[in-house]
């Protein structure tokens, strides 16, 4: 039903693929193929049934996706751009899968890799990289989201041990994690602890009735006088710098991932608009639809360029936190706008789980909030350009 032949890949109008290395392209294509085979056929159903396909974790591990940008301990050791492109493809399938991978690689594994002892790294990283074990990262609390320094979870010394009390909220992978990286106040400031599943006093409760990220697990975690040896503490992490460094890693994946969700939404809209006929012609031939598609293509291209630029900076070791804030702020904001607009192109069919845009839009509501809300990233950028912190 097409008119004149459209360009070969309308989703890459700017030909960004041409500035990737062969290796980056191959990694991206491998992730895309895996997801096309193993996730896409089922994702609508999983989202509807609030099912996380945990059995895919070892397969993702085998590919090398988990902790892929880390060196050693069974990790693949790719560059940052490759990691970003993998996140892009994962989120093009579903933000839930990208969230799983971000938490596993950038939060759980990175916290151990960056701040852990050699013993902790050897114990956990190879299993986490293989997807045999699952990790989570516990910073946010029911009453402390944007303001983690107010956290109530506390660890106090008891002889050579630590006693941990408190609770954590909105923890991706929480209910299935084999090891939790828990951040708690101590008398010396914030410290991190590795708490294995099954430690007495450590319980979890999955959060039900979500309207977003339904294909991944989000949990509340409770610590009731959990006794931990000092060897459970991440020895190199001191203060909030510990958890915040991890969040920067994860946000980097998100600013690529959002591009994926937007691309997938736009693809659905372009294909649909070409096949949907009203008033005897495809709706893609109407000016109002074309304006939507064109505007979205421009903003998708800009977001992708931004992501790639930040990826190159990260690979050169020059990226700064406020630059990551620019990326997360812009790309998630644009992605959610694209996903919603794509839903409108699909008309009534847009509310069906057979099409991805509304699922992506709903998922992106979480992405907009987690790992620093839009508002907090706005203030980070504000401070960077004015010098005035305006957070409180």
């Amino acid at each position, binding site marked *: 039903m097409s008119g004149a032949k459209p360009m070969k890949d309308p989703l890459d109008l700017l030909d960004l693929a041409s500035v990737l290395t*062969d290796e980056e392209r191959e990694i991206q294509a*491998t992730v895309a193929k895996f997801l096309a085979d193993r996730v896409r056929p089922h994702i609508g159903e999983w989202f509807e049934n609030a099912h996380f396909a945990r059995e895919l974790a070892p397969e993702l591990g*085998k590919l*090398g*996706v988990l902790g892929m940008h880390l060196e050693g301990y069974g990790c*693949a050791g*790719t560059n940052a751009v490759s990691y970003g492109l993998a996140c892009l493809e994962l989120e093009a399938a579903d933000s839930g899968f990208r969230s799983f991978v971000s938490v596993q690689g950038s939060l759980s594994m990175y916290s151990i890799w960056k701040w852990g002892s050699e013993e902790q790294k050897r114990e956990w990283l190879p299993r986490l990289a293989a997807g045999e074990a699952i990790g989570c990262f516990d910073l946010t609390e029911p009453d402390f989201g944007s303001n983690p320094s107010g956290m109530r979870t506390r660890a106090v010394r008891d002889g050579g041990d630590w006693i941990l009390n408190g609770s954590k909220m909105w923890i991706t992978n929480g209910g299935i994690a084999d090891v939790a990286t828990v951040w708690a106040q101590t008398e010396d400031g914030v410290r991190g602890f590795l708490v294995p599943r099954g430690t007495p006093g450590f319980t979890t409760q999955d959060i039900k009735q979500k309207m977003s990220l339904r294909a991944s697990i989000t949990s509340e975690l409770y610590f009731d006088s959990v006794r931990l040896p000092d060897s459970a503490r991440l020895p190199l992490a001191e203060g909030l710098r510990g958890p915040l460094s991890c969040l920067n890693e994860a946000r980097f994946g998100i600013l690529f991932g959002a591009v994926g969700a937007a691309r997938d939404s736009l693809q659905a809209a372009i294909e649909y608009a070409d096949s949907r006929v009203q008033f005897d012609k495809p709706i893609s031939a109407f000016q109002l639809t074309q304006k939507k598609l064109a505007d979205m293509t421009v903003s998708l291209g800009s977001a992708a360029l931004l992501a790639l630029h930040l990826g190159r900076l990260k690979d050169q070791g020059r990226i700064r936190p406020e630059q990551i804030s620019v990326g997360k702020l812009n790309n998630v904001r644009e992605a959610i706008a694209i996903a919603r607009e794509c839903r409108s192109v699909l008309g009534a069919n847009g509310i069906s789980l057979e099409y991805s845009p509304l699922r992506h839009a709903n998922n992106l509501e979480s992405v907009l909030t987690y790992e620093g809300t839009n508002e907090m990233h706005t203030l980070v950028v504000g401070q960077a350009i004015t010098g005035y912190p305006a957070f409180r």
Partner: protein
Amino acid sequence: MNIVVLVKQVPDTAAERTLSEADHTLDRADADLVLDEINERAAEEALTLKETADAEVTVVSMGPDSALDAIRKVLAMGADRGIHICDDRLHGADVVTTAKVLAAAVRTVGDVDLVLAGNATTDGQASAVPAIVADLLGLPQVTHARKLTVDAGRVRAEREAENGEATLDAPLPALVSVTEKINEPRYPSFKGIMAAKKKPVATVDLGDLFPAADDAGFLVTRTRVVEAVPRPARAAGIRITDDGSAGRRLVEYLIAQKLV
């Protein structure tokens, strides 16, 4: 054990395929090229054997510069080395020439125990190349295998054809072609992708493979396309209302369309 896998890069089957107006060969410039899916299964079979036996896997592909991507993919899956036959003179090569060139490339490997190929490629469907390569190399052709066992110097396979199945048995060295049912190919791992760049790929041309042949005497094709007519765009089709004869008329239509 020395295993050679023959692979080919083909246009993505999901994409539209066009013939060039100039010489009626497949227009590859316009197409997304991918490693042929059945070839990928041949590679998987080789790599599975490599896991259980001490084997070196060489992947051979004939095609333009872009065929290197197909070779690299198999290297990323775990093959050890590649041979890329790249020569502009091979543009438009027919089935016989393709087989002769592939056989010559296999000969350069030396002491080959097993040659693996896909039973067909999605672009040509001639399905004859593996059998010809076997004939040229004097190897038993164990083709269209949906199941394969290599053990104690012999190969056994379940051959699938339209008239039923057959069990084949042959001594090594042998050539095996596999069907799409034989296995599920692995995904290359990221470590594999990164390691593939360091694996050796020899690029050879006709001069390397046939040093004695003179240029003018080398036949690239023994057939000529006189005319290629694209199928007319989908028009409003035939519509009938069943009066009891629709089943029969439908069969006649399918026969006329050469579909049954």
